[in-house]
């Protein structure tokens, strides 16, 4: 073509080189590599065949967010850091992989009244410490490390962490001798071992490592511990490439059953990237939620595990403590809008639960009574549940409360682009379809902004969407989300809304101390019945548990009581 000949030789050469490179790249990209990886950063999906997963010997998991802190003292419950802590650190006792029994870990025995390791008055717990356990830095585990680990959490008292768990129950920690650790509680508690003993915040860190790198300072985070992990677990953190991945190596001196494979956790907030990566074989497992399981179902080489429900129900909060003049200007509701329980009941009846379940959750999920999730001790299957939209009842209640003709405009704040936003939209559609006088404004904001609002005291919005923190014991849910003097109760003025706040409070307090499990369950059943008529939340659903992984993964098992994604990678093989 005269066109090409018209060019300077240099330009022509450059063009040819570029074209050649591109062709070369395209060819080698499309071919199946013999060895070495195709895995990692970029997902190259191709037809139905997946290339072999990343170099054998590494388990690759794609997480949906990046940890903020790797320090047990500073990690927020429910955020990505907990996943990492679960793999690298250990606690005195753990929840067994198979079910919900407790098993000893860094302690050699579970304290009970019978074996004498719980004192008569129920206040002192004695933990015999396992011998010959080494930390990742080579030092050996003693009771001093345990005391140090717990004490530092309580001294640092980082606001974003879960220090409250320890501070609320522990009065004193004592080292009896290098192999014996003792805890004295403020008051007897039926849930201490389960709620506190197994929690990530109670992980045991190496005292020597911390002391050598910044020590402990009240109210201040330790930068070394935020980005490094020195624990006793089967995995040792070798690298954290921000925004890309975290790399772990098998810890050879692990006291227990060693891990089979190295571990790499890729940070992939994009569901597309995770889905395609899984299908292409680049990831062995990915973080999923029910809303896109449908996209993976039936893909070759992929196995979907769905059983059980998450213990973090998705809920919408009512603000009974609306701060004056701080609501968005468009809102027309008075400050005591939610004091009237008919209004709260009406909202609960108006929400289209089935639409949310089928739509957002793809059918994976269920509905629970207020406020004990299905699968938790104390859940009463006979208790009344809000699981169907009931327009007549909603209308009746709104009329009675005087809002039907008057109408209202209310804003609900949520994180954007996830299930919470969808719950907010379902709420909006449910209410607006009910009565044209009702307007619900959905404010979908970035996670950081939502977190800021959510952490305010009180929240400057009338409603918000979030999920509950997962707890190990029903008392924790009750204290947090129901008790008039509990965490949310105080901030959001539940006492002003309950018909009989004293009754609710006394029932919860009674159950907290009751050591007889049957009697305890009875109390919780009564609470679930009472709360149906006096709900402080709108519980959109309990998400079903779904996990997607390649079928070559062996030894797969999940335990919902472990932090998301509810797995310990050390147990897997390929």
């Amino acid at each position, binding site marked *: 073509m005269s066109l090409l000949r018209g060019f300077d030789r240099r330009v022509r050469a450059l063009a040819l080189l570029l074209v050649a*490179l591109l062709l070369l790249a395209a060819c080698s*990209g499309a071919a199946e590599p013999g060895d070495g990886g195709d895995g990692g*950063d*970029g997902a190259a*999906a191709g037809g139905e065949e997946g290339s072999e997963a990343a170099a054998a010997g590494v388990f690759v998991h794609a997480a949906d967010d990046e940890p903020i802190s790797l320090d047990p003292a500073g990690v927020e419950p429910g955020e990505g850091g907990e996943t990492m802590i679960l793999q690298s650190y250990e606690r005195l006792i753990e929840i067994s992989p198979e079910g919900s029994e407790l098993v000893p870990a860094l302690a050699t025995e579970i304290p009970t009244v019978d074996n004498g390791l719980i004192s008569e008055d129920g206040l002192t717990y004695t933990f015999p410490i396992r011998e010959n356990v080494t930390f990742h830095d080579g030092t050996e585990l003693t009771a001093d490390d345990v005391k140090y680990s717990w004490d530092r959490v309580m001294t640092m008292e980082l606001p974003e962490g879960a220090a409250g768990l320890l501070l609320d129950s522990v009065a004193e920690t004592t080292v009896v001798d290098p192999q014996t650790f003792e805890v004295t509680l403020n008051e007897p508690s039926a849930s201490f071992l389960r709620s506190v003993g197994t929690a990530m915040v109670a992980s045991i860190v190496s005292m020597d490592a911390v002391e050598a790198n910044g020590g402990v300072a009240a109210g201040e985070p330790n930068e070394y511990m935020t980005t490094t992990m020195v624990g006793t677990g089967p995995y040792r953190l070798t690298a954290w490439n921000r925004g890309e991945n975290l790399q772990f190596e098998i810890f050879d001196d692990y006291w227990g059953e060693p891990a089979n494979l190295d571990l790499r956790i890729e940070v992939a907030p994009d569901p597309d990237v995770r889905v395609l990566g899984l299908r292409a074989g680049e990831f062995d497992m990915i973080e999923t939620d029910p809303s896109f399981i449908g996209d993976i179902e039936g893909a070759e080489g992929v196995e979907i595990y769905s059983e059980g429900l998450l213990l973090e129900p998705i809920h919408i909060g009512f603000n009974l403590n609306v701060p004056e003049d701080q609501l968005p200007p468009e809102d027309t509701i008075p400050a005591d809008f939610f004091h009237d329980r008919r209004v709260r009941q009406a909202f609960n009846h108006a929400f289209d639960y089935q639409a949310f379940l089928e739509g957002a959750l793809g059918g994976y999920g269920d509905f629970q009574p207020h406020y004990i999730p299905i699968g938790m001790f104390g859940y009463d299957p006979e208790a009344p549940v809000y699981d169907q939209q009931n327009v007549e009842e909603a209308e009746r209640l709104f009329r009675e409360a005087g809002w039907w003709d008057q109408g209202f405009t209310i804003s609900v704040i949520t994180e954007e682009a996830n299930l919470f936003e969808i719950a907010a939209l379902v709420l909006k559609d449910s209410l607006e379809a009910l009565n044209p006088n009702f307007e619900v404004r959905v404010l979908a904001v970035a996670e950081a902004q939502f977190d800021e609002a959510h952490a305010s005291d009180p929240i400057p919005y009338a409603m918000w969407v979030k999920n509950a923190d997962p707890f190990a014991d029903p008392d924790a849910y009750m204290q947090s989300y129901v008790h008039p003097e509990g965490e949310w109760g105080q901030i959001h003025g539940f006492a002003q809304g309950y018909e009989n706040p004293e009754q609710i409070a006394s029932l919860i307090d009674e159950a907290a101390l009751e050591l007889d499990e049957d009697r305890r369950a009875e109390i919780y059943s009564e609470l679930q019945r009472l709360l149906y008529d006096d709900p402080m939340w709108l519980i959109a659903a309990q998400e079903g548990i779904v996990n997607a992984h390649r079928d070559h993964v062996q030894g797969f098992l999940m335990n919902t009581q472990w932090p998301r994604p509810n797995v310990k990678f050390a147990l897997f093989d390929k």
Partner: protein
Amino acid sequence: MQIRDYILRRLMILPVLVIGTSIIVFSLTRVGGSPIGIYLSHEMNAAEVAALEQRFHLDDPLPVQYLYWAGGVLRGDLGWSGVAAAPVTQVFPAKLAASMELAVASAIVAVILGVALGTYAGARRNRLPDHLTRIFSISGASMPLFWFAILLLIVFWVNLGWFPIGRSTAEIFARIPHPTGLYTVDAILSGDLGALVDAVWHLALPALTLGYGATAIIARMMRSSLVEELQEEYVDAARAKGLPERLVLRRHARRNALIPTVTVIGLTFGFLLQGAVVAEIIFRWPGLGRWMADAVLRGDQATIMAYVMFTSLLFLFVNLVVDVVYAYLDRRVVLGA
């Protein structure tokens, strides 16, 4: 004389423009969010926050605040990026390298294809190739990059699987050192052909996408200036002399037509700079653009301000250079040939 005056005048205005831009950026920090938002980091306690407020004189009137902010910037304190969980200046170089690599690749594509296409069309004015090129050019100017990128993604990534997204394959990335942060250059320096191929393979799709619009701009300019050039008297003279068409084209017309094309370099650069934001989002390219997009969504003031400042200064500089070069060339053309 005229040229020197022109250059001097432009250079003298430069500081005014830089200061003006900084004032706009400063005003943006005062319009939204908290005034020290750019310096706040997740871990600071109340005492540190108060110290910050003191240091930047938040109690003083705005002009004073501006001076302290500007002083901070000149000392290299661009604040803390919430998105990257690190000081802006620490993260900036790596992201800059990524964006530069993409921009240069796209520019190469655009220049080669654009000049070729423009020449081809201009030489065949008002015949089919010209009209097709015109359609191509206009479509390039009207093309929403986010849509075009998604289309290419669907075809080439989801369905055909010919190209990957992201910047590199983890294993290949790990096996060579990265002194420059430009993966292609790093691969060449290491002599690792596989790494070079991997880098180019990841670059291909974003560069082609981003290059499409830039190609359209260049092609269009090349075409119209070639058309004008071909109408000049010397072309008829050369033809009358019996010179083959090719030579007329190559030796004279195209060279002269390239000169006005220089003027669109500024435009092309602006296009690439802005298109990078969207292209990096969609192709998951870890550059400045994607960082900015995350910052915008998460209220990371420091990153937003640093990005606006940087891109404006760059844009200003490039336009200045282009204008000066063009003035120089134009003068030559007027005097000589």
